């Protein structure tokens, strides 16, 4: 096939205008100029083709050549992705470092995955088997945590004619040859390509039924997210978006984490890299990096690659989902992605909609979030992709277009609150303005796996927080002294919930991750405290007497005192509450 070639005519930031050929196809990947910078066709006009370039365009000259690859922008898929760190268009940063040192040079075309490395392959397909796209034909231990399942790529189906024996192979060596019904023979290797802007096909979507357990109390107990669900974490700067994302990436019970640092700080990516290599997975004791892929387009890296990074990330996620894994994507931050869209749209002189964002912002956002889901794969396995996207609203104002449009496409909204962050209440998720639509879908799971009483206890906690918010309006106006004891009790217990339950210390060894059982039992202790003290208040005994015993503060500190493997200690708190209350009652009878 003859390659399509054109020449550069105009340059404006990352946007390059190409003339000389009318054959360029939309969304094709092209090489631009002498250095072969990677770009993508984003518009075709009568007299010129518009290309966005994923690298700095400084020094490009009109007249330089632009060559089409004839393929859409694609991600390379195969073993070697996990534990790696890539830029926005899937170039491995470790390889780039070896080539160009501490600073990034442009025009470095490298393989996404190491093509020299030999993998231990166990071939599961046999000669004579009939295979279709998505079928698993071999397995490879990719990391200590994850077995890579090699799948038949799209466009290949038929009878297996030859299969190699188990052994060591590179990603480019053939494993199978497959003869299709029409007689053509395809070779299957471990490596395949997939266009990043197209969703990978599945057999069918399944209903949401299992939570993504995160070990964070305010999330798991009050505002849960499901496997295959979507959540948005909006918050102004300094409210802990990144911290929340890091906590989820560390502790959530997904099999694989794809962490997309989209237009954020370089030091944060370094921190994730360092932390995840040191931290171990609580279940297996292996380094967390073995289940993690990082995609880094820091805020000073080329803006067009920022736009692509989100799609690269979700394509990798879908690939592992197809193998039957539960994958969670952390995208920090989707606002930077939207701003990249805006920047490129501005350079194209498109008509802007709200706040300069292009009119297609909403459809792009929905296209991204809709790639999440809990699915039945074509090979019969089940897998899921969950998306947790941080949103950085300008000025912390949630009415701006990115937050508002994101809200339409996610079912879980964890609003980070400046006031809470200022008081160093972390995670600063505001329990009143946040919501999760997944609780109903997950109710059955919680009742079966945690406790049949779970929903009741959760409702108690939620209602107490609601009552506190109502009462605090009064307190703000006239002070807390005028409240009667029943109301004061609500305030006291709500304080216990806020400080002792919702607030969670990411740096404390037993508080950074809390299993569901412990979360539930802590809620039970708090409910018991409320009921027991209410009996006392009902006897017209002043609540001050209970406060003086220090029991409220004792309960607040239980999160630090009770380790995650000593839940029986929580029973001790129940007894302590009972005996104290009995004591107070007895004292007042005399």
């Amino acid at each position, binding site marked *: 096939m003859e390659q399509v070639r054109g020449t550069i005519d105009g340059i404006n930031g990352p946007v390059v205008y190409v003339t000389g050929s009318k054959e360029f196809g939309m969304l094709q990947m092209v090489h631009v100029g002498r250095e072969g910078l990677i770009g993508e066709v984003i518009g075709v006009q009568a007299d010129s083709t518009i290309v966005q370039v994923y690298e700095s365009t400084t020094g490009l000259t009109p007249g330089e050549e632009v060559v089409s690859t004839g393929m859409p922008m694609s991600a390379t898929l195969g073993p070697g992705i996990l534990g790696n760190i890539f830029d926005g268009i899937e170039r491995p940063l470790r390889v780039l470092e070896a080539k160009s040192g501490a600073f990034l040079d442009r025009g470095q075309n490298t393989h996404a995955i190491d093509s020299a490395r030999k993998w231990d392959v166990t071939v599961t397909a046999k000669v004579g088997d009939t295979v279709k796209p998505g079928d698993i034909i071999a397995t490879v231990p990719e990391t200590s945590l994850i077995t890579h399942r090699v799948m038949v790529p799209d466009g290949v189906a038929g009878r297996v004619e030859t299969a190699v024996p188990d052994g060591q192979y590179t990603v480019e060596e053939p494993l199978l040859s497959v003869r299709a019904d029409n007689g053509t023979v395809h070779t299957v290797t471990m490596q395949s390509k997939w266009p990043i802007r197209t969703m990978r096909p599945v057999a069918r979507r399944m209903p949401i039924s299992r939570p993504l357990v995160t070990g964070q109390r305010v999330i798991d107990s009050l505002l849960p997210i499901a496997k295959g669900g979507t959540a948005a974490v909006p918050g102004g700067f300094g409210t802990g978006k990144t911290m929340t994302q890091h906590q989820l990436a560390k502790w959530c019970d997904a099999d694989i984490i794809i962490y997309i640092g989209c237009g954020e700080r370089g030091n944060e990516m370094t921190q994730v890299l360092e932390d995840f290599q040191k931290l171990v997975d609580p279940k297996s004791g292996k380094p967390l990096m073995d289940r993690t892929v990082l995609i880094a387009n820091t805020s000073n890296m080329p803006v067009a690659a920022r736009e692509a990074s989100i799609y690269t990330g979700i394509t990798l996620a879908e690939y592992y989902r197809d193998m039957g894994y539960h994958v969670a994507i952390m995208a920090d931050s989707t606002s930077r992605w939207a701003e990249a869209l805006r920047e490129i749209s501005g350079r194209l002189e498109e008509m802007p909609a709200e706040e300069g964002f292009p009119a297609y912002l909403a459809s792009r956002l929905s296209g991204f979030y809709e790639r999440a889901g809990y699915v039945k794969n074509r090979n019969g396995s089940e897998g899921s992709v969950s998306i947790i996207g941080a949103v950085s609203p300008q000025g912390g104002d949630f009415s701006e277009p990115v937050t508002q449009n994101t809200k339409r496409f996610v079912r879980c909204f964890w609003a980070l609150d400046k006031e809470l962050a200022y008081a160093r209440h972390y995670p600063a998720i505001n329990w009143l303005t946040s919501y999760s639509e997944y609780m109903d879908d997950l109710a059955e799971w919680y009742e079966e796996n945690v406790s049949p009483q779970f929903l009741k206890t959760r409702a108690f906690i939620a209602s107490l927080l609601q009552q506190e918010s109502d009462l605090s309006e009064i307190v*703000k106006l006239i002070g*807390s002294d005028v409240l009667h004891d029943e109301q004061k009790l609500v305030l006291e217990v709500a304080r216990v919930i806020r400080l002792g339950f919702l607030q969670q210390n990411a740096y404390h060894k037993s508080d950074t991750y809390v299993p569901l059982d412990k979360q539930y039992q802590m809620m039970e202790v708090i409910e018991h405290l409320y009921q027991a003290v209410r009996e006392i208040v009902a006897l017209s005994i002043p609540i001050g007497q209970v406060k003086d015993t220090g029991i409220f503060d004792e309960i607040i500190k239980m999160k630090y005192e009770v380790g995650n493997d000593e839940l029986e200690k929580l029973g001790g708190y129940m007894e302590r509450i009972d005996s104290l209350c009995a004591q107070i009652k007895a004292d007042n009878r005399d």
Partner: protein
Amino acid sequence: MSIEYMGLTEINGPLVVLSGVKNAAYEEIVEIKVGGRVRTGQIVTIHGETVVVQVFENTSDMSLTNTVTRMTGRPMMLPLSKEILGRTFDGSGRPIDGLGDIFPDTYEDINGRPINPIAREYPRNFIQTGISAIDGLFTLIRGQKLPIFSGNGLPQDALAVQIVRQAKIMGEKEEPFAVVFAAMGVKNDVADFFRRSFEESGVLDRVVMFLNLSNDPVAERILTPRAALTAAEYLAYTHNMHILVILTDMTAYCEALREISSSKGEIPSRKGFPGYLYSDLASLYERAGMINTSSGSVTQIPILSMPNDDITHPIPDLTGYITEGQIVLGRALDLRGIYPPIDVLPSLSRLMKDGIGEGFTREDHPDLSSQLFAAYANVEQVRSLASVIGEDELSDLDKQYLAFGKAFEQQFIGQGKDENRSITQTLDLGWQLLSMLPREELDRVDPKLLEKYYRPANEPA
């Protein structure tokens, strides 16, 4: 010999348009001769044989016929050698101290190149500034970018100078240290104040100054921070020095960017600033850090004035999203005569968590700072309650908080312009103040630490 182009097609503010140009490279530097003077500019858009050039000096006296333009074929390069220490340059990097040109060891592209995230070294070394509010509550870490958000009339310059004078890296041998100072659109007096202060504290021979004052060309303002950061990177990564970069005033820089964007006819986003303001600011701020091939570091303290004290204005807002925290100065404290008037609640240092505590400062530091924040946040609530119901109606506990709040502002936040407190003094002072509150209020502190440090006045030590 390179081709020279006679004349221009259009002049619009700092932008000029040339036609019939062949082989112009995007973002290359051009030299425009008018009369006997040479001005420099940069190609910002190419369309066919038409190029748009942004002129860094002003365009006065230029006409469509009196100019001769030459393409240099390279981006803006800064000549560098170790001699730049102690020298003063204009906003585009030419010496203005009358000491002549420098003899360069190397030329560097002032736009720099992004640091590969995996080549970064995660910053962990505590820098003691001797200012309690900063050391105790939002610790500065080597390689961090920590801006000062100020307002007109607040003492941000005095604070920056105090940091420069007192900054000390803990627990290590003397390492080479220098300051790169970039002024964008600041008043002559302010530049003078910095120069005088550097002189008085005897650091002038370790300072590199880049000055674009408020009456200097606007377009040159775009180059100033880039030239300064290029010099800083050169000293840090080639000569392994620890560099503190002060960029003031970022607001003037952003306004220059807006001015040029609007004369280019670009589609504006919030408040008329260009849509790429975030990426542009990031290309400056992200040049702070440490890399694994050098022992040097670049620490940035950008100063910006919040227009109308509004922290949600696009400039502070976007800055806060890129930098690793912020130190916010508050007018209310300033009016009460407290120096430095650091507004504690909105201020933050994102890197402090990994640079404090046992092995770095002292084991009680994380809990102590968290507790001071929580207590002071509560003081604010009590104050708003008191403003409604009056101080007399407050509960005893609330009154204790009010007393704590007052003492905290005067003794902990407030300190002298020459007062240099060690981290131990700062932490001890923090405990002294917390001891004004009842023990059960201190829910952020590990009970073991309470045992060791909590000493209420009415309880024997």
